[in-house]
């Protein structure tokens, strides 16, 4: 049981990595990119190509794939998101959905129906584990993903609060017009934010490929996981995303214990439960009360 819980918590690290890009982009540009998962899968294929065809191991491959992803993010913002965002809130959804169909099917066209994995190229990392007292094993890769998640989220938080560019991103997120008045170029800021997002998507793609298999149509499920983790954690807050990822990972691991199909059902069910509690009329006052009591406690630590 403790083992299941621990695995679930560590799985949350992966979900936090893939969700943080989605929630970062949403908080800056108010856009939910429906091609998010497909782009992560494309990055995983990129790493697989480098490893299988050019003999470059995935961790070294990241040095090539991550800059490419950043460039893809820049282009994505300049040529697709910027134009579609001008047409209101509906158009970016349709545009990015169209993009995801194109990416998924191009990947299928190129790589076929076989599932792929990066596991063969990273030695024993995909299954190696540390033994803890009480016959508990924790996977090295899972721990690595959790540490990376914390580093990415912490790094983003640090960047947003300590650097001029980070503050410009926050200002643009808050109010692009007023930010423009003080000389912030919203176009440039959004392009940088999308580039940063795509770097996190590239890392998520690497982890996806290392911990499991993927195929051309894996993008959809990855988007749903990222979205669920972000919503459970409360979209917009980076540490909330980590909490959301952990809750999602726990729900899936516990669901899998109950039923062979319970892994996905557990995750979706918790997502809907959180949504229901947050949105229903009875849920709101309760959550508000908890939040209010937390705030007063934080203000006056007794």
């Amino acid at each position, binding site marked *: 049981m403790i083992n299941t819980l621990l695995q679930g918590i560590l799985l949350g690290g992966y979900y936090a990595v893939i969700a943080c890009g989605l929630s970062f982009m949403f908080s800056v540009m108010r856009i*939910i990119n429906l091609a998010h998962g497909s782009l992560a899968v494309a990055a995983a294929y990129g790493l697989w190509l480098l490893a299988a065809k050019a003999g470059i191991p995935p961790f070294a491959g990241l040095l090539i794939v991550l800059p490419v992803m950043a460039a893809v993010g820049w282009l994505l913002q300049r040529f*697709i998101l910027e134009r579609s965002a001008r047409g209101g809130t509906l158009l970016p959804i349709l545009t990015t959905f*169209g993009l995801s*169909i*194109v990416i998924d099917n191009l990947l299928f066209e190129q790589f076929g129906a076989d599932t792929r994995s990066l596991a063969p190229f990273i030695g024993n990392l995909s299954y190696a584990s540390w033994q803890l007292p009480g016959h508990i094993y924790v996977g090295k890769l899972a721990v690595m993903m959790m540490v990376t998640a914390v580093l990415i989220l912490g790094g983003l938080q640090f960047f947003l609060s300590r650097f001029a560019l980070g503050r410009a991103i926050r200002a643009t997120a808050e109010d692009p017009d007023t930010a423009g008045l003080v000389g912030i170029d919203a176009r440039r800021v959004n392009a940088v934010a999308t580039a940063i997002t795509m770097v996190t998507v590239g890392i998520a793609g690497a982890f996806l490929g290392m911990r499991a298999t993927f195929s051309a149509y894996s993008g959809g499920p990855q*988007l749903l996981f990222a979205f669920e983790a972000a919503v459970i954690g409360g979209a917009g807050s980076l540490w909330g995303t980590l909490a959301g990822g952990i809750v999602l990972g726990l729900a899936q691991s516990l669901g899998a214990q109950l039923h062979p199909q319970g892994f996905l059902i557990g995750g979706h069910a918790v997502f809907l439960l959180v949504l229901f509690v947050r949105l229903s009329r009875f849920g709101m006052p309760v959550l508000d009360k908890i939040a209010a009591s937390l705030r007063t406690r934080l203000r006056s630590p007794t």
Partner: protein
Amino acid sequence: MSPNATLASNGISIERWTKASRVALGCMAAVLALLMFAPTVLGAGAIDRMTALFIYVILAAMWNALAGFGGLVSVGQQVFFGLGAYFTIRLADAGLNPFVSLFAAAIVTGALSIPLSLFMLRLKGGEFAIGMWVIAELAHLLVNLDRLIQGETGTSLISLNVYDGATRRATIYWLALTAMAALLGALFILMRSRAGAAMQAIRDNEEAATSLGVRVIATKRLLFVLAAFGIAVAGGLWLATATTFQPKTYFSVQWTAYMIFMVLVGGIGKFEGAILGAILFFVIETVFGAAGVWYLIGLGATALIFSLYLPRGLWGEIERRFDFQLLPVGYRLKLPGPHKIKWEE
């Protein structure tokens, strides 16, 4: 003096119908009447294809009702397609006539969409879009748990076997034609009613509509339930033509991709746009469907390009350039003299 009389004294009048739209409605009625006789003249293959076209028109019109008129873009509408088919199987298994089951299944799906709407409609934009996708995935997984369905293996609508091939084909054709005509008619009447005006006000500016006293959630729910019902009818009809039910096929996000393609290319928020889009999709599928993956890449790329460069779709462009509407759901302000005529949607 009443407002209309004031306008009239200035030579301004408000129209709901034009000569072109009266002719169009008449033509549509005539075409529908002619289509009734198709099974007596056309061959089996042609009848099956026509049935598919009617189903596409239903899908496009229903997705357009939700997104185009209600401003609710969903990428999970396949949930109602899948549930429509699933409940048809379930009800037919319980002994109900398969054709009656199809209709009853749509009612059950529509009823289920009411509690679903209670919290899904509180989500905005992309959250609603992906939230619906999660619902579709969950419904797919739960349907897989049903013993009758046997997981992804699926099952068949065996009770259809009591009808011989020709009767079955013609009955499904007539059902699809009737369902299409009834759903389009219901949507047309709804959009021209007070609720329709409310919906378009919400789509254009939700805050402004709220401040005018429009009951936003109730109005959106009406569209949500109508779309759920209509798409469930389409799912049941598709099952009747294909006979086999495999959850993976019916709950595939591809159905929503088709709906988005049809509506975006035809013209989102235009009553005629969805119909035009469905016909175009049908033709493209007939010509390029065999191209497999490249066909899907083409559909995605076309949707992407239309949303970026031609967001009004083909019908929107026709309307703008030629000032032409066949089935107007809005009001038309006619100004005296050489002024441009302005459509208020």
